[in-house]
């Protein structure tokens, strides 16, 4: 069979790559040029290093850089080590299969909403201190400790790490079966080695190679996040990413070039750190061979098991408590310190929010639904094209595509979103809904692809083949057989895309040009204010939408296939 270039599917991968790479490339160019003083929009048309010297001499720069490094590296390291401890101590076990089931709803919680919940727990007048006050009469007024937004960035590190552990776990769980982890453990045990030995020297080295990209995404996220850092991060000064956002939005337009230089610095910093991590791999590999040869395996007691229990408890406690306290704050009418519960409840705020929030709510819903639908369409198109190529004489270069897909997750949003906005202004698209939708797709498409590609590629092609030879109609074979058998993973990918869109903050701020408010931008804007009730209601809505969609993604196939036993066991 010869490849027909004119085939309509052939264009889909290019279209998909264009959708999420065009903004990244245009955005990088549009950020780096102003960083070197070339920004015709505000009358700067000569290259200069002034933005850089302004940046480095800015009084907040050293502190912001330090905060960025400490919180970013700290959170990524904490997340990686916690994930490793959870695996050593509890994989495979009943605890794990239970944890595995709670991952989807946990991952769907938008960052901003989770950070707001964490603030309710951790602030000096928050729940944790109130619970302590029950036991001690010395806490009759909120203590003066800074337990949230602390100057060392500890609350930011903890919040970030808690948000990243589930993501890393999910990635590991997808890969461990292919590494035959259980058999390896069994074999190592039977040869007289501990679980720790098997994990450290046999499984982790392989596992790390497979989760390197997700881990780098975590690293990039921790070092450059804005919304969580605004809510939970230090303020004097804020992290670099927050500072850059402020410069980009400064009424003094010349500050934008400083912001651009900052964004470029952040990208270089991140590249250096990733390069460093890559360079460390070889010495570590040599260390592993050395330890394997010498059969070094310390016989310390197995402290990983209690540690894994502790970590999973902390994880679930904070997620449950953050949700619960957000709910209570949303319903509270009057709540004095140090009462553990409000003295009066009311639905006023929630009811009020429905009218006040109706615009952001609809905007959020429309954006999330449309971007998830569009993403599913192009991703299914790409994956169908792979099938076509498989039978059409070409190799599928899955690995290369994967690296491309990770680009928007590896390059910090703040490093290119400003440049993309500048380009949109030039072509007159800034502040339009289409541009906003596009900016969300940049992040929704990769996540949808990552979620759907596994199950889609595992589909037994003989089903399609049979359906074709039986009916003689391609449409039947695709719509009635393939898509329905894959309904569960498709809906799951839709829910993932939906949740990713809900969580977007920077694209809405920059590309929306202030004309579109979503639940997330409203929540972050309110987080610096003092109305905890409104903040809580906002965070509740933000959490509720993805949860509803995930619930639907589970219930619809369950209902549709209630009389089909073989379909109830397909795991998405």
């Amino acid at each position: 069979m010869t490849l027909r270039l004119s085939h309509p599917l052939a264009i889909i991968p290019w279209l998909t790559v264009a959708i999420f790479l065009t903004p990244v490339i245009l955005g990088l160019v549009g950020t780096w040029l102003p960083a070197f003083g070339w920004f015709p929009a505000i009358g700067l048309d000569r290259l200069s290093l002034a933005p850089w010297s302004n940046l480095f001499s800015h009084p907040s720069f050293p502190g912001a850089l330090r905060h960025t490094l400490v919180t970013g590296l700290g959170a990524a390291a904490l997340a990686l080590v916690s994930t490793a401890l959870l695996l050593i101590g509890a994989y495979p076990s009943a605890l794990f299969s239970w944890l595995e089931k709670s991952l989807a709803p946990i991952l769907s919680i938008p960052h901003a909403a989770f950070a707001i919940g964490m603030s309710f727990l951790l602030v000096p007048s928050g729940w944790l201190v109130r619970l302590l006050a029950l036991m001690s009469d010395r806490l009759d007024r909120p203590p003066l400790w800074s337990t949230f937004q602390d100057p060392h960035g500890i609350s930011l590190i903890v919040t970030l790490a808690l948000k990243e552990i589930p993501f890393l776990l999910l990635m590991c769980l997808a890969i461990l079966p292919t590494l035959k982890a259980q058999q390896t453990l069994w074999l190592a045990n039977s040869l007289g080695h501990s679980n720790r030995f098997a994990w450290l020297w046999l499984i982790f080295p392989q596992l790390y190679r497979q989760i390197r990209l997700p881990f780098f995404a975590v690293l990039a996220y921790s070092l450059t996040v804005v919304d969580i850092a605004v809510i939970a991060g230090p303020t004097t000064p804020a992290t670099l990413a927050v500072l850059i956002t402020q410069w980009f939005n400064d009424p003094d337009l010349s500050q934008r070039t400083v912001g651009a230089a900052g964004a470029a610095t952040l990208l270089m910093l991140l590249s250096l750190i990733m390069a460093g991590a890559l360079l460390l791999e070889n010495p570590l590999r040599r260390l592993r061979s050395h330890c394997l040869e010498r059969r070094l395996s310390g016989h310390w007691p197995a402290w990983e098991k209690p540690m894994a229990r502790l970590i999973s408890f902390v994880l679930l406690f904070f997620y449950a408590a953050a949700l619960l306290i957000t709910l209570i704050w949303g319903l509270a009418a009057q709540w004095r310190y140090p009462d553990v519960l409000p003295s009066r409840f009311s639905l006023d705020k929630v009811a009020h929010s429905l009218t006040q929030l109706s615009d952001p709510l609809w905007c959020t819903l429309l954006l999330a639904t449309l971007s998830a639908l569009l993403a599913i369409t192009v991703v299914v198109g790409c994956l169908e094209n792979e099938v076509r190529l498989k039978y059409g004489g070409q190799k599928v270069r899955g690995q290369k595509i994967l690296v491309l897909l990770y680009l928007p997750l590896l390059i910090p949003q703040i490093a290119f979103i400003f440049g993309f906005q500048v380009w949109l202004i030039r072509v007159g698209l800034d502040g339009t809904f289409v541009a906003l939708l596009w900016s969300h797709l940049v992040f929704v498409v990769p996540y949808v692809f990552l979620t759907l590609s596994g199950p889609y590629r595992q589909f037994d092609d003989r089903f399609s083949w049979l359906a074709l030879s039986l009916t003689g109609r391609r449409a039947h074979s695709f719509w009635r057989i393939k898509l329905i058998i894959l309904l569960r993973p498709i809906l799951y990918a839709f829910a993932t895309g939906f949740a990713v869109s809900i969580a977007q903050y920077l694209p809405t701020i920059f590309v929306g040009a202030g004309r579109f408010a979503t639940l997330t931008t409203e929540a972050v804007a309110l987080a610096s204010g003092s109305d905890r009730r409104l903040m809580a209601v906002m965070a509740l809505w933000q959490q509720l939408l993805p949860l509803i969609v995930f619930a639907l993604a589970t219930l619809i196939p369950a209902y549709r296939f209630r009389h089909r036993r073989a379909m109830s066991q397909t795991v998405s």
Partner: protein
Amino acid sequence: MSMQLQNYQLCRHQQPLFKAFSLTVAAGEIGAITGISGSGKSTLLADISGILTSAFKSSGEILLNGNSLRTVPIERRQVGILFQDDLLFPHLNVFENLLFGLPAHFSRGEKAARIQDALSESGLGSYALRDIATLSGGQRARISLLRTLLSEPKLMLLDEPFSKLDRALRGQFRAWVFEQLGHQHIPVVLVTHDPEDIPDGSRIVDLEAPDA
């Protein structure tokens, strides 16, 4: 009706898998192709059916009733296939699975009647609304064949269809399959590694290793 392979050969990455051969199977006849595993038996059926992955190249001619199948897309070849797995669609019940194969020109009533007849004749008359996951392996295998036969293929391909069944079930199912196929009066191509699966009077091709 007849099926012909002329000077047929499969190559994988430019390496021939077996010596080129020719085979003619008339209507009502069975052509059996045997060979060790890895000799390209199943790939050969994929090629006749119209799906060949890009790692393979085939040469020679495939004719059905004198017309080359090479340029006909899979959905218009009217070639039925039965695998060792039943591959019943897991989201459809027995009736819907069978309905899927019926040609569009029948009316709804005709379709339902044909399905009911086919099920009754096979001793599965009361199974129309059953979830396929609740059936036994033998029942599923039978429905899988019925589904293919209802689509009125002009050529039937069998890809080791008996190899996954229990020993006890196997002989019985084999006899039933060839009896059903006998009524159709179409050419049948069977690939297998088990000589017991080949009915008497078949035209047998044993795939030979290519000359080095």
